[in-house]
């Protein structure tokens, strides 16, 4: 060997972060952090201040909305705890102290928005690092990560930057000084073979995410070695044993490749085994009684995921994805195009069904939409959950509802989707009648225009208020189906904010009052031959889902990740068995008694 000793094939010992072997060409990110450099003017003139502030706020809103999407995706794919870090980043971008500092720099010192944001974020990060504590220093990385996200929006190369490390055209091993949680969450396991960093321990969020995504990773690489590495150079890591191969020799390469292939095959086989069995089968009990398993979907990506996960339909399409995080309300054409893309994505991915139940825009002060404010004013309500929301907004602004219904019907006609529509937040029969009248008018209007409206669209309502549940026998006559929004029904029945841990801790996953209301709604539906569906966390709980089926709910709608486990558990017993347990639950007088029945299921 004539080269420098660092080129010896013997591996260096590093920290094991995420198990597995990765071998492939290196992609090197040398700089600590990836704080975007603006490269444009740092100072502005007095006349530009107003426009600069406007741009800042638009970029902040976009970044917060993006973090929301990321947070939801990681919650779905990995878990709630791992997603929490993005909540903290959202709060940082809404922080009064940080915003004031940025505003002052722009208005008084005429900093550009980018320069002001960089300075303020750096200042705050520095103060956190000065605390000389590892946990607080990690938050300094978060504020920089969050600020970089805003700066990407400000300098307008968002797309390029977002995909910088996340996606590659061919498989690579990433070598970086550091990876932020955002970077890691964006890694695509199909092309990122492995990750190797200088800093970062096994307990960081980035490490947890890497393990959840099953991407092998090591850290503790010597920064000097990093600076010597070049893009394309063949390197390898062993995340199980904590080894880094800077220049693996031929024999090592063969072994490492074989090992990587084996682990990829294992993973593929494991996934396939888990998936294949239930994916292509419709939900049913052991005696073959159908219980449809649908998915809750909030955007095009999750529509595809739902189809791939074996959803028999979309039981709750949250149309809010189109309206959130933007300043201007989308017009009919834009809505039509988005729905069409989403419907197509689901139809292509789903082997089982083509039914989509769309919930009309469920906005309100608890789910604020800046784009709605020009129409309905700022929502400063003392009690937003009890305020102007859902169908109540539709009835005040029927033009917005008409626009949405037109776009949905046109998209269904074009894509051949069986579209059903449901209205959120119904409390009275009058609301149902008025909404049906709007729908009838829209349908007629489209027919006059010669637009084919496709197959029969069923019109249903969400049962979320105790008022609707109590009136279910009357409402059932005038709708085609019910969909119980279990989360809100729980909140309104118990008069307890479901996001308020102080009160939610006092109640069980099931409360007798809520269970009785669900039973009442199911019975009203059965009496009038109207199907009853349920969406919400209850349907995703494998202990509770089969009992809902036992109660008579014939369609359960849940997050895509819950579909296979729920299909599996449903099929373990006959419908009669589940009916027996559901009846037993109806006898329960306390949450504790109900819990005992649930425990008997999970211990089985």
């Amino acid at each position, binding site marked *: 060997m004539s080269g420098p000793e660092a080129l010896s094939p013997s591996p260096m010992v590093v920290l094991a972060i995420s198990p597995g072997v990765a071998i492939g060409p290196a992609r090197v990110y040398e700089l600590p952090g990836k704080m975007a450099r603006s490269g444009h003017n740092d100072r502005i003139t007095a006349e530009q201040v107003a426009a600069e502030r406007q741009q800042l706020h638009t970029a902040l809103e976009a970044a917060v909305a993006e973090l929301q999407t990321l947070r939801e995706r990681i919650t779905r794919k990995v878990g709630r*705890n791992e997603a*929490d*870090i993005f*909540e*903290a980043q959202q*709060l*940082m971008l809404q*922080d*009064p*102290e*940080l915003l004031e500092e940025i505003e002052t720099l722009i208005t008084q010192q005429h900093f550009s928005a980018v320069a002001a944001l960089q300075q303020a974020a750096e200042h*705050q990060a520095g*103060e*956190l690092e000065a*605390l000389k*504590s590892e*946990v*607080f220093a*990690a*938050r300094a990385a*978060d*504020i920089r990560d969050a600020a970089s996200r805003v700066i990407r929006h400000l300098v307008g190369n968002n797309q390029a930057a977002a995909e910088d490390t996340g996606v590659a055209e061919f498989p690579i091993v990433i070598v970086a000084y550091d990876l932020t949680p955002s970077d890691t969450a964006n890694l695509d396991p199909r092309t990122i073979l492995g990750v190797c960093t200088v800093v970062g321990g096994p307990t960081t969020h980035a490490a947890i995410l890497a393990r959840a995504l099953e991407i092998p990773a090591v850290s503790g690489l010597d920064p000097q070695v990093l600076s010597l590495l070049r893009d394309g150079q063949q390197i390898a890591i062993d995340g199980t044993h904590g080894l880094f191969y800077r220049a693996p020799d031929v024999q090592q390469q063969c072994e490492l490749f074989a090992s990587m292939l084996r682990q990829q095959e294992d993973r593929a086989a494991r996934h396939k085994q888990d998936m294949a069995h239930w994916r292509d089968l419709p939900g049913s009990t052991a005696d073959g009684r159908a219980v449809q398993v649908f998915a809750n979907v909030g955007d095009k990506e999750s529509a595809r995921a739902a189809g791939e996960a074996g959803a028999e339909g979309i039981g709750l399409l949250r149309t809010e994805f189109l309206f959130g995080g933007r300043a201007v309300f989308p017009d009919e054409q834009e809505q039509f195009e988005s729905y069409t893309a989403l419907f197509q994505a689901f139809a292509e991915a789903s082997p089982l069904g083509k039914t989509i139940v769309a919930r009309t825009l469920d906005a309100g002060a608890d789910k604020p939409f800046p784009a709605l404010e020009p129409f309905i004013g700022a929502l400063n309500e003392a009690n937003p959950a009890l305020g102007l929301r859902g169908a109540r907004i539709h009835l005040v602004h029927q033009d917005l509802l008409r626009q949405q219904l037109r776009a949905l019907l046109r998209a269904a006609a074009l894509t051949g989707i069986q579209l059903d529509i449901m209205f959120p937040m119904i409390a009275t029969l009058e609301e149902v009648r008025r909404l049906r009248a709007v729908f009838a008018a829209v349908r007629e209007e489209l027919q006059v225009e010669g637009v084919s409206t496709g197959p029969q669209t069923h019109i249903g309502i969400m049962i979320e208020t105790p008022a609707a549940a109590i009136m279910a026998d009357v409402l059932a006559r005038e709708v085609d189906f019910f969909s119980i929004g279990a989360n809100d029904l729980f909140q309104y029945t118990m008069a307890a904010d479901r996001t308020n*841990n*102080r009160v939610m*801790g006092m109640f069980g996953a099931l409360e007798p009052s809520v269970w009785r209301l669900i039973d009442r709604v199911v019975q009203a539906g059965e009496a009038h031959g109207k199907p009853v569906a349920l969406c919400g966390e209850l349907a995703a709980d494998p202990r509770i889902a089969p009992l809902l089926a036992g109660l008579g709910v014939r369609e359960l709608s849940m997050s895509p990740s819950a579909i296979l486990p729920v299909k599996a558990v449903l099929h373990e017993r006959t419908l009669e068995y589940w009916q027996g347990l559901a009846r037993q639950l109806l006898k329960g007088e306390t949450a504790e008694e109900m819990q005992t029945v649930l425990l008997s299921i999970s211990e089985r």
Partner: protein
Amino acid sequence: MPVVETTVVITNKVGLHARPASMFVQIAARFQSQVQVMHGEKKANAKSIMGVLKLGAMPGDTLMLRAEGEDAENAVNALAELIDRKFNEEE
């Protein structure tokens, strides 16, 4: 305007960082009162996550909560209770 003060000891495992700080500022933001948190000589706006993080409050540290406004009492109680409950860390 009513002013309400109380002292609380941080007892959760990790101190007032990331998730606990997120919960803390979100609860503080529900109240109209001005709420301050003091940790020794450091003082922060309870509705600012940066401010709260920079207190660097670790397990065993004592914090003083001070609220001023119509709902000051509720604000202080809610925050003190969150800290007492260790931010729901131990399930």
